[in-house]
């Protein structure tokens, strides 16, 4: 059995095929749990019980809903632009699933003499790939809004474009300090500073006393900016004007039903999981964590456990925000994005880069002992 697995993973083609199928299955199964998790947590926050009938604690509720959506009629309005209308839900899925392929969700496993990384592939420019893919996500919403041939989807599409472009800028700027820090820590011209596997490795060890060496302790402003932009980027409350049901019915997916609607829904939850996983990888040490002295045969379980624990901690914040905060007004959203988030991230980027440059080239005065960035 072991030698069979080893042979399978030593073959590039089969290893890639297994990873892709596994990533797909993992994301879909994770969405089933995430939707249930959200409904239960929101229910408890609102003093309700939430779905509790299908399966233990109602955990099969999403599966039931998903199956129902599969078999529902798919209504196609007469005025749609058919090709693009059908393409939009798929365009939502593809970038969402591709992003996950570069995120390492566990320590590399050694089977025999083959090392299997728990990551689709480790791109040299993984971070840039993530930014590129998340910038493609806006297409599905724009095209869905435009091709539906009706006014509410169009309004949703216009809102989505403006919102996602604005917050993408802040998100990209929040990632740059991570690359700077990784490059400075790596030295040697910073080769590999955009690879996610390297960024996780760099966060090993401890920062001070018992505090782990996660980047969040150096880059707290970046982490906060990244997380807020991520909430906006995934169109979640309080930034869910794109599908504000009290104003524009369902926004871009008003004219979609059945499985086509389900694909949009799936993409939204996969994106939510992805941005949380990226935040964990960049700032919270990824899969790093104590191994709690498990026997060596089971040691590979702990990194995966830590990764999912941290990711679900951030997803809990997503749900918490949705249950707590009212929706922003459109002008508030725009002025917050352009007048608060982007200036803050540029200011922090300049400040941090100057400090890192001084660390590299020498300070003009003595740095006090307590200063953690030196």
């Amino acid at each position, binding site marked *: 059995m072991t030698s069979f697995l080893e042979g399978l993973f030593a073959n590039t083609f089969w290893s890639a095929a297994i990873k892709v199928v596994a990533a797909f299955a993992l994301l879909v199964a994770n969405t089933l749990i995430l939707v249930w998790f959200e409904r239960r947590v929101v229910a408890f926050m609102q003093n309700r019980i939430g779905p509790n009938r299908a399966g233990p604690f109602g955990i099969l509720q999403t599966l039931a809903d998903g199956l129902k959506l599969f078999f529902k009629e798919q209504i196609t309005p007469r*005025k*749609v*632009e058919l090709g*693009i209308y059908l393409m939009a839900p798929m365009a939502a899925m593809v970038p969402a699933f591709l992003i996950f392929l570069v995120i390492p969700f566990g320590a590399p496993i050694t089977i025999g003499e083959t090392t299997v990384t728990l990551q689709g592939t480790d*791109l*040299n*420019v993984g971070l*840039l*790939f993530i*930014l*590129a893919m998340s*910038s*493609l996500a*806006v*297409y599905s919403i*724009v*095209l869905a*809004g*435009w*091709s*539906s*041939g*009706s*006014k509410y*989807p*169009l309004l949703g*599409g*216009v809102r989505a*474009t*403006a919102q996602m*472009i604005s917050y*993408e800028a802040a998100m990209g700027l929040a990632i740059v300090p991570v690359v700077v820090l990784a490059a400075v820590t790596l030295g040697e*011209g*910073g*080769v590999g500073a*955009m690879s996610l596997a390297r960024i996780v490795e760099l966060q090993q060890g401890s920062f001070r006393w018992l505090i782990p060496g996660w980047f969040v302790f150096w880059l707290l402003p970046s982490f906060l900016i990244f997380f807020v932009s991520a909430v906006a980027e995934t169109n979640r409350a309080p930034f869910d004007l794109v599908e504000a049901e009290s104003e524009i019915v369902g926004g871009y997916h008003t004219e979609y039903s059945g499985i086509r609607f389900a694909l949009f829904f799936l993409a939204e939850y996969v994106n939510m999981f992805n941005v949380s996983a990226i935040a964990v990888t960049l700032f919270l040490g990824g899969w790093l964590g104590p191994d709690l002295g498990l026997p060596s045969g089971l040691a590979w379980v702990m990194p995966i456990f830590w990764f999912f624990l941290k990711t679900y901690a951030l997803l809990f914040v997503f749900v918490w925000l949705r249950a707590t905060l009212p929706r922003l007004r459109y002008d508030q959203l725009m002025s917050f994005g352009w007048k608060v988030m982007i200036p803050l991230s540029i200011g922090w980027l300049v400040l941090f880069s100057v400090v890192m440059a001084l660390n590299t080239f020498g300070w003009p005065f003595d740095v006090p002992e307590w200063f953690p960035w030196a």
Partner: protein
Amino acid sequence: MDWGDWLSNSQNILFVVIALLMVAAAVRVVTSPNVVHAALMLVLALGGSAALFLMLGAEFVAWALVLVYIGAVIVLFLFGIMITRAPTGRDPVRLDHERRWPAALVALATFATLASASVAAFEDEAIEGGVSSTGDLGDVLFSRFVIPFEAVSFVLLAALIGGIVLARKDPG
């Protein structure tokens, strides 16, 4: 050059497929009567050029191209179309221009100039020591090509200021 040998290399076949796709998409950009379809065809053409960069091993340039051109510039095109040309779904106004033949001539002449210039300069010699890694790219950009780089950003700044001037409503 032996074409049979050339085509037996799988990379060359991939190149031909991508290049033909790009040419077809580029032709559709200018012939499509629907402005949104034209923009989507432009996405296909740019995606093809990103794929060519990937084939050359220039990952950074390829993904930067996807991020900037496909992910931002064309999205802004679509945004502009949606807030200015209100018709949704099938566009009743066919996109056309009466001076399309002179435009085609200019485009063809530009292509001929660029193609003959690059053929005259390099012919079929392989370029060694090209810049592909991200670090090298940064070094070259901020040393040898720093003046053109700054000039380009100056042009962008001018365009930005121009945009603000056009959009301002206050008199005087």
